[in-house]
């Protein structure tokens, strides 16, 4: 009985090895525990543009809308993954003063941008509502899904702007640590 259980466990181990998940898990752990902070300028800029494109697509026709409904959550998930390796990531050890300063700068930019966009959005929706009564059709979220996507877009913008700001503030690499 015990022998059979042992064989099953061995089989499951080999199956896991074949999928490559343990190797991926080890690499992810190494990357997350890495001491060196690396900038993520291009990836976060691309994701920022992509999430904005996603929101624009949501305002379009049915086919474009479907693509937008896929693109916005995909960018949100990708931003979360990028953030885990960026200067805005969380550390297993206490952060030093330089890292704290870098993350504070990133948060100020990220939340500041979202605050400005939220205020601008409120004015926009106010104008859109008034104009809708006059027969003009300006886009604004109509149903629950569109509101949900707006929320995801704002979170993705916050993540990417903060990563961008922290990455730009990071001095040129001093990676050689002897």
């Amino acid at each position, binding site marked *: 009985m015990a022998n059979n259980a042992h064989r099953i466990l061995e089989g499951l181990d080999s199956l896991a090895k074949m999928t490559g998940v343990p190797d991926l898990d080890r690499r992810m752990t190494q990357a997350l525990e890495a001491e*060196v*902070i690396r900038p993520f300028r291009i990836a976060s800029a691309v994701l920022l543009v992509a999430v904005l494109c996603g929101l624009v697509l949501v305002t379009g026709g049915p086919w474009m809308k479907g693509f937008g409904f896929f693109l916005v959550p995909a960018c949100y998930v990708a931003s979360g993954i990028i953030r885990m390796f960026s200067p805005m990531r969380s550390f297993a050890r206490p952060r030093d003063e*330089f*890292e704290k300063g870098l993350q504070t700068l990133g948060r100020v930019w990220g939340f500041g941008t979202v605050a400005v966009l939220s205020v601008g959005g409120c004015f926009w929706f106010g104008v859109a509502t008034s104009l809708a009564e006059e027969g003009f059709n300006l886009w604004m979220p109509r149903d629950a899904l569109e509101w949900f996507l707006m929320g995801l877009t704002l979170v993705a913008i916050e993540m990417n702007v903060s990563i961008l700001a922290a990455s730009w503030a990071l*001095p040129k690499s*001093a990676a050689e*640590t*002897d």
Partner: protein
Amino acid sequence: MYNRIMLFRVEAGLSRKQLAEMLGVNAQTIGYLERGDYTPSLELGMKLASTFRVRVETLFSLDPFPSVAGALEQEREGPHGKQRT
């Protein structure tokens, strides 16, 4: 802000990682400090000075530190300019 962290670190025979561990910061931060890319807080500056057993103004300066060659040249010339022929 100018500093002589690298000079004192090498003099003490410490690697960046060792100094970082002594100060409780990331080794990358030591690199930024040495290059002058980052100005430390008063607390970290005093910790650095205390680690090397020197005064803060020996380690940090608002003006560039004279080069070793420049300092030797000045010493050779004496306090009243060029005296030797």
